[in-house]
């Protein structure tokens, strides 16, 4: 079954089995993954589901949308090249794993 792997700042990894279409944010919240807050519930309004997308996963995920790009300016932890909003990343069909790095803080 496909999975999303969350890597914490201290290196701890946790993988969660998901169906295609599951978002990085909702999966984290539903499974109690630390460090993803999602104050706005997935409406691309709060930038508190900020993650850094692993290089290995870049090819599988559509590029940053305009709305996402604007919201990422509000990310509390520094914005990097690979910054994304977890609520905007859904598990693509046919992909085994998406890896995301959780930032140190969201607010």
């Amino acid at each position, binding site marked *: 079954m496909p999975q999303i792997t969350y890597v914490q700042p201290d290196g701890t990894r946790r993988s969660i089995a998901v169906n295609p279409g599951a978002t990085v944010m909702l999966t984290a*919240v539903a499974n109690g993954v630390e460090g993803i*807050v*999602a*104050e*706005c*519930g*997935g*409406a691309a*309004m*709060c*930038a*508190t589901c900020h993650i850094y997308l692993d290089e290995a996963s870049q090819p599988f995920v559509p590029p940053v949308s305009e709305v996402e790009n*604007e*919201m990422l*300016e*509000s990310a*509390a932890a520094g914005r990097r090249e690979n910054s994304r909003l977890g609520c905007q990343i859904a598990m693509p069909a046919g992909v085994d794993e998406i890896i995301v790095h959780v930032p140190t803080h969201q*607010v």
Partner: protein
Amino acid sequence: MTTAATIERLESDAPSTDYDPYANEVLDDPYPHYEMLRELGPVFYLTKYKAYGIARHAEIDHVLRDPATFCSSAGVGLANFHTDTPWRKPSIILEVDPPMHARTRKVMGGLLSPASINRMRTMFEREAEELVDRVLAKGHFDAVTDLCEAYPLRVFADAVGIPREGREKYLLPYGDMVFNAFGPVNERFKSCLAKAQEGAIDWIAEVCRRENLTPDGLGMQLYKAADEGLLEPEEAPMLVRTMLSAGLDTTVFTLCNAMLSFSRFPDQWDLVHANPSMSRQALEEVLRYESTFHSFYRTTTHEVEVAGVPMPAEQKVCVLIGSANRDPRRWGETADKFDVTRKAAGNLAFGTGIHGCAGQMIARLEGEIVLAALGRRVKRIYLEGKPVIHYNNSVRGYTSMPVRVDAA
């Protein structure tokens, strides 16, 4: 816009109830009623208002994420703008659908984004410290007038950039009228409208004018967006008005609900006082447990089935977010417990989807800062008299709440 007449349903496939969301005794304590509604089924029919209703988290989340089916252009109160004359010109951000919605939303969203509003943190924090100085000096005070109204009337209205004169008199009655309009056109709404016509409506129009706004406030930024062609010229003052309608009464009542919850549950205040850095998380639980905004409407644009229940087109659907936030299907067995250690993020106090409250981040900022300032310096909050409820068709708060605070 269609010209289809509102289809009156005398019978429907959903269980019926003569529940009245707007009765005083319901507004006194809606929660037992919400449990009844959730148990009726995922969708029910309000016979008194000829509208469908949804009270569980999952279905409400679904409806709010499908604006094409559940539209806002027919109004977000009971009146159907496709068939009845709106009581005022529809809001160009709230009561519109895509694609028009995206344009105004983009401007407001940018203005109220976390990056944009974080610039106000220092000012908000300074005002909160002064507010706490004042209430500690008093000891006994009315939490509503001296804290919950005073703070947003100062910081949010300053952030928008309107003149200070007249705020206490006119701002809150104006928002009160707007929120009453999310329900039926009942006596409560009519008397509120009459009161607002005694000066509030004119005053709001005046203070929204460009020449009356401070040069770097949120209001002026809307005019600058119009200068850049992102808005039509006449849209700028309308959106300033929207911010003032939507952003004051709500934050006032959220602070009221916070003060009440922490005075009723001092063990929860102990946690915040011991660790004021959890104030943001605590505020989120206030929003969930005692939501400010309780219900509004959407209108079906075509026949649709929700949880197996068919609904025709042009039907009003009452979305009871105040109930969703107590739904044990989402929040577990302790849904009815006020618990600041809970992770309450993902609640529906601000709605969700494309019309999710555009001001939610500034609302959270105000709440977090006030609770943190109180948390650092107030050991306990005591209720010293019965709080007086402010009755409104869609928002819950108070007009008076005598309290006493003990300094840390």
